[in-house]
């Protein structure tokens, strides 16, 4: 029988990272993600890796840049205000094509905001966040198991495309405890070797540079086009989403992460009362599952997008399915604003006339 553990989402991220061979962690304490550095600080010495509690979020993302440039599988984690501080380094990593994992166990804002769950960092995560017009791979776990599984996937995707990856979760997914079935990590056989990584020029006879500065005429444009070809390729090959009761749904509820969990319960309640409703849960927020929305609204279905913010992902949904009626229900983040299943069910009743 498979071993089952009862752990927090944050611990599952740490376990998944270490199992996936991450041996370099750089971070700075911030609620509600501090279980991640605490777990790794405890476990890393025995694995022969390095854990650094840096002087700032800025330093920790730049340590990640340095470790990544040297070919290491490495990570940092933080929460919203700290992720804002990391944006400079994230932009450099994107520009320098340095893979690596950035975990955002997001909290409410703006500013110091609060420590409770929030999905208000969606724009920051999926639209680049820092300067210069780049994207991260953004994965949105909705369970403790997915915190483990998607952490592993994030490393693989990041290494494959040389694009930094982000786990975007929040206080709900990070702090809740659920059963986790940890499984051994197997590296994909076709992961490209890191021939670009810096080891000193001696062994290969030619010196290498990891950089984002391109001053020659046309150089930077070509570099940017190369980055955007990778984003397009990911859009083709790496989209992931989960569907629930979508086959005959007249209303497609869509939500990710913590609100997807609540919406799932609401959809189940609605189904029990005969409403033809389903749930489409994006797992990759970038690349965004545009085709999934097209497919599941092709017969004139409506969409209800639920978020723990005042409307962010809904923009991407509307862009994915122009002409389709897309309703939005959101709660502005802050203590006490987590929607209940009944609250979402009430919205379903408002927008779904069809009952079987």
């Amino acid at each position: 029988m498979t071993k089952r553990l009862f752990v927090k989402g944050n611990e599952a991220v740490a376990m998944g990272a270490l199992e996936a061979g991450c041996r370099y962690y750089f971070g700075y304490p911030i609620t509600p993600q501090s279980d991640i550095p605490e777990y790794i600080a405890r476990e890393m010495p025995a694995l022969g890796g390095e854990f650094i509690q840096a002087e700032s979020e800025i330093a920790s993302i730049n340590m990640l840049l340095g470790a990544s440039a040297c070919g290491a599988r490495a990570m940092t984690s933080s929460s919203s205000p700290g992720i804002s501080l990391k944006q400079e380094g994230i932009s450099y990593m994107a520009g320098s094509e340095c893979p690596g994992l950035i975990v955002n166990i997001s909290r409410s804002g703006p500013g110091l905001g609060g420590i409770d769950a929030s999905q208000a960092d969606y724009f920051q995560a999926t639209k680049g966040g820092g300067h210069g017009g780049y994207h991260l791979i953004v994965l949105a776990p909705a369970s403790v198991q997915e915190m483990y599984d998607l952490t592993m996937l994030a490393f693989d995707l990041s290494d494959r495309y040389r694009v930094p990856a982000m786990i975007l979760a929040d206080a709900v997914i990070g702090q809740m405890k659920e059963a986790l079935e940890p499984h051994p990590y197997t590296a994909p056989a076709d992961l490209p070797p890191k021939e670009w990584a810096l080891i000193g020029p001696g062994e290969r006879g030619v010196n290498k540079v990891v950089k984002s500065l391109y001053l020659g005429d046309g150089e930077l444009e070509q570099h940017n086009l190369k980055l955007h070809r990778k984003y397009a390729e990911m859009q083709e090959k790496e989209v992931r989403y989960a569907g629930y009761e979508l086959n005959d749904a007249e209303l497609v509820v869509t939500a990710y992460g913590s609100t997807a969990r609540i919406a799932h319960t609401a959809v189940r309640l609605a189904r029990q009362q005969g409403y033809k409703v389903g749930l489409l849960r994006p797992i990759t927020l970038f690349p965004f599952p545009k085709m999934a929305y097209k497919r599941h609204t092709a017969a004139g279905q409506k969409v209800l997008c639920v978020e723990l913010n005042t409307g962010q992902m809904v923009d991407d949904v509307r862009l994915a399915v122009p002409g389709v009626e897309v309703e939005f229900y959101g709660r502005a983040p802050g203590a006490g604003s987590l929607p209940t299943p009944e609250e979402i069910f009430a919205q379903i009743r408002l927008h779904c006339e069809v009952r079987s």
Partner: protein
Amino acid sequence: MSSENVEAMKQVFSRPVSLNQVQTHFCPGCQHGVIHRLVAQAMDAFDIQGQTIGVASVGCSVFLYGYFEIDVIEAPHGRAPAVATGAKRVHPQRPVFTYQGDGDLAAIGTSEIIHCANRGEPITVIFVNNTTYGMTGGQMAPTTLPNQRTSTSPYGRDPGKDGYPIRMTELLAGLEGTAYAARVAVDTPQHVLQAGKAIKKAFQTQLQDNRFGFVEVLSTCPTNWGMKPVDANARVAEEMIPYFPLGVFKDASAQGE
């Protein structure tokens, strides 16, 4: 000259193998070229060119990846000591150094350099102090001298409003993690020799003691100082050294000189 004498000749001066055979972009009279050469000579002395990873900063020194025959990571402004920390932890057996200007290290990157030194990261830091932001056109730096006119201190630096120039070497020498901290200049042949020795020592501190070594090099910026190269060179002794005294401020390395 007889053929026997030719055979007896030996080469005593050549381009360091750690330097690429290219022309630099530096302005006439800028001393980055001299300092680059001293860093390259230090790498040659320890025969580490093939293993070394350099971390370039933002400013005139950003192009060092084109001048040194080594692997280089280009760091965000001020963050080179953090980037170098990540690199060194991955490659503890390989030499890692940063090369940073005064705006980079003593203004925006103050936090990174202090904590890198405080952790005693076994890296070498070369800090080039020319009392101005060279690349961006001569603005006031944290090391700009009192009353010095720059494009953003057009009436001269007023310590009452702008603060005083920061003496980074003395500051870092006060940290437990710093094993070696020295300030040198390259305005005279004698100072060039001393500077070469200090830079070599800062690499030795990393390679043999596995500790943090720091060298501040006073340098010229004739273009942004609005001076002829010869006058700029003279300013180092006349104005900079009195405020930024030369010397070894800490040597806790095992070998000594």
